[in-house]
């Protein structure tokens, strides 16, 4: 019946540029700040599909906040706090990278370029809410003044490591801070967040969940099971997809994000979604607030695609110059979140170049001394207890583990 055939070709998407090429972001559609509408939080998914193919942006080129997503009531305190936390994270990441080079930790993951997302998002959550993070959301903890030393002790797997050396560096767990135990397995936490939010709904609670996943990991199947369950039971959960363009060496096209957006994935599940400039602190704050309000009002899940760029290496085990142009990060059209907020703060008259430099120095000092303090409890696994290995496998140690522990001790 169909004779109009031709031999098929196999198509593998390629990024616009590879090492040696000029970075090229010309294909990226970036609406002007302030140009995108702000739907009512009661809008149905169907009524706001346009939001998934555009980008919510608040900060203008000149650093002013414009458009319907700009919040006139935003306090200087919040903005300054956000700035300080982002600076702290950057200093922290910097320090930890050198710790790794010095052999004091086996591994580290930085979030450079993506700080605004987790920091601003956390500012919209309340105590009792629960994040289900990936390894690049140290900002969720930092924004709550999580003790630096404790964080470093985890990274050093030392005597004071709250996880007693069981987990790789950066895979924190902090229930008190609404920070779910990190899995080394990509994607699994996305459905946990949905289940947690379902539980909150079942109990008539008022606490919400916030789930995190990278654009690469959004290809994992747990993404689907999370969206299906969120679609069916409409629990109070925010589904964050951090699209930082790269998943180790694979660009977003290998995750199916070359033509459709990750925000569009929500539509097939009747879930409203937003696509947001993730390097715009004010846009992150505004969009998170919007989704948090929806959830609190029991209007159900929201998916947010945060558009950003992984400015650093994937981890200390990675060398990005092998698969993308060295200067691609500089060419990234959404800029750096710290510099953009800085411009805004300066335009508001509440910050200056000098205070910026001063703050950088302060954090560098604070982190240096926290590091020194932490190192006293050991580096690279020093001081971790052998017996901790057998504990917490079960609530009570079963006989066979008791015997195995004895076997080790003898």
């Amino acid at each position, binding site marked *: 019946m169909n004779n109009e055939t031709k031999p098929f070709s196999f198509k593998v998407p390629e990024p616009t540029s590879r090492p040696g090429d000029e970075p090229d972001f010309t294909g990226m559609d970036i609406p002007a700040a302030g140009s995108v509408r702000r739907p009512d939080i009661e809008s149905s998914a169907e009524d706001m599909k346009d939001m998934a193919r555009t980008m919510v942006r608040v900060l203008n080129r000149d650093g002013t906040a414009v458009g319907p997503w700009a919040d006139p009531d935003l306090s200087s305190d919040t903005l300054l706090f956000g700035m300080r936390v982002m600076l702290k994270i950057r200093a922290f990441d910097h320090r930890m990278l050198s710790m790794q080079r010095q052999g004091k930790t086996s591994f580290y993951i930085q979030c450079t370029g993506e700080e605004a997302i987790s920091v601003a998002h956390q500012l919209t959550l309340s105590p009792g809410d*629960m994040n*289900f993070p990936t390894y690049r959301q140290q900002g969720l903890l930092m924004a709550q003044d999580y003790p630096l030393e404790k964080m470093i002790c985890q990274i050093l797997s030392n005597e004071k490591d*709250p*996880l*007693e050396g*069981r*987990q790789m560096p950066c*895979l924190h*767990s*902090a*229930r008190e801070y609404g920070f*779910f*135990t990190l*899995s080394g*397995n990509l994607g*699994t936490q996305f*459905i*946990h*967040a*949905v*289940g*947690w*939010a*379902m*539980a*909150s*709904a*079942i*109990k008539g609670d008022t606490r919400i*969940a916030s789930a995190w996943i990278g654009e690469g990991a959004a290809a994992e*199947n*747990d993404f*689907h*099971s*999370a969206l*299906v*369950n969120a679609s*069916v039971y409409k629990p109070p959960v925010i589904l964050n997809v951090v699209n930082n363009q790269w998943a180790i060496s694979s660009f977003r096209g290998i995750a199916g994000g070359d033509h459709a957006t990750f925000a569009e994935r929500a539509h097939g599940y009747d879930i409203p979604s937003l696509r947001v400039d993730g390097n715009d602190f004010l846009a992150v704050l505004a969009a998170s607030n919007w989704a948090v309000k929806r959830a609190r009002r029991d209007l159900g899940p929201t998916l947010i695609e945060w558009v950003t760029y992984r400015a650093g290496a994937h981890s200390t085990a990675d060398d990005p110059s092998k698969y993308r142009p060295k200067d691609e990060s500089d060419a990234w059209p959404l800029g750096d979140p710290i510099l953009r907020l800085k411009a805004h703060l300066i335009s508001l008259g509440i910050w200056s170049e000098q205070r910026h430099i001063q703050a950088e120095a302060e954090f560098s000092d604070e982190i240096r001394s926290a590091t020194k303090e932490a190192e006293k409890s050991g580096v690279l696994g020093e001081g971790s207890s052998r017996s*901790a290995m057998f504990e*917490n*496998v*079960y*609530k009570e140690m*079963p*006989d*066979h583990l008791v015997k195995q522990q004895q076997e080790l001790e003898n």
Partner: protein
Amino acid sequence: MTSMTMVEAIRDGIDIKLGEDDDVVVFGEDVGYFGGVFRCTSGLQEKYGKSRVFDAPINESGIVGAGVGMAAYGLRPCVEVQFADYIYPAYDQIVSEAARLRYRSNGDFTAPMTIRSPCGGGIFGGQTHSQSPEALFTHVSGLKTIMPSNPYDAKGLLIAAIEDDDPVIFFEPKRLYNGPFDGHHDRPSKNWTGHPLADVPDGHYTVPIGKASVYREGNALTVLAYGTMVHVSEAAAEETGTDAEIIDLRTLLPLDIETIETSVKKTGRCLIVHEATRTSGFGAELAAQVQENCFYHLEAPIIRVTGWDTPYPHAQEWHYFPGPARVGKAMQELMEVA
């Protein structure tokens, strides 16, 4: 005391926990309005409401994954995977998440949940409604794995599982749901009425996790079995006139090695029976531990009678199933060793 089928005993156990503990929630494919394809949750949605007992999308990974999230919140989910053959899509969520939560967070988060799933063959279900994948869970630290053989144990162990603070895999031999089954598929099927272990106490009681029971006492040889194979082994012992001691393991992990050791040291001979595929089945672990612990008491090699190392076939079901003839023959062989 009420005489109950295994389905009724399981339902009663869930009912009791739903009634006692507001944090218990029950969900899975077809378990809500309809009450489950094997009727184990029949009537419970009506009784406890849709927030406590509900239908889930056909996504086993999501059922377990959502359960992990709920358990981390503080609930005690008791979920159903419709057939054990369909538990593999959930394998990552079970192994990498449910089993690991407590360990990797140093107790900061835990996953007290029960995963119920009908297992085993004998219903002409072919390769995707007959499997016994228990060994795939006993290899995973952080999990407990249970398989009851009768209504009394089923209810008591299920209540214990739901109350346990660690994740429990609870396999229900579907061929036992409505009656004991000794492998004589060509004889009229029996029902539970009159069976001593179908006398189920009303209300709350538990059977301890990690304790085997001596199902039948004997001196000639020890049979290690669980689920349907307990009944098959009993029939084989009767029919061959073997003075077999049958241990019903009930819990596979943690294993009650003491009860096993005592028996094997007494009899000096050990037969292991399971329906699952032989290679790397749970019988391998049993054989390894028995020879480790009872080496000097063993008068003959430990024998395994199991399903073959093939998928579970449809038409050849009864050639695959380790029935009383094969078990009886192994008993005789084991006794023949001087």
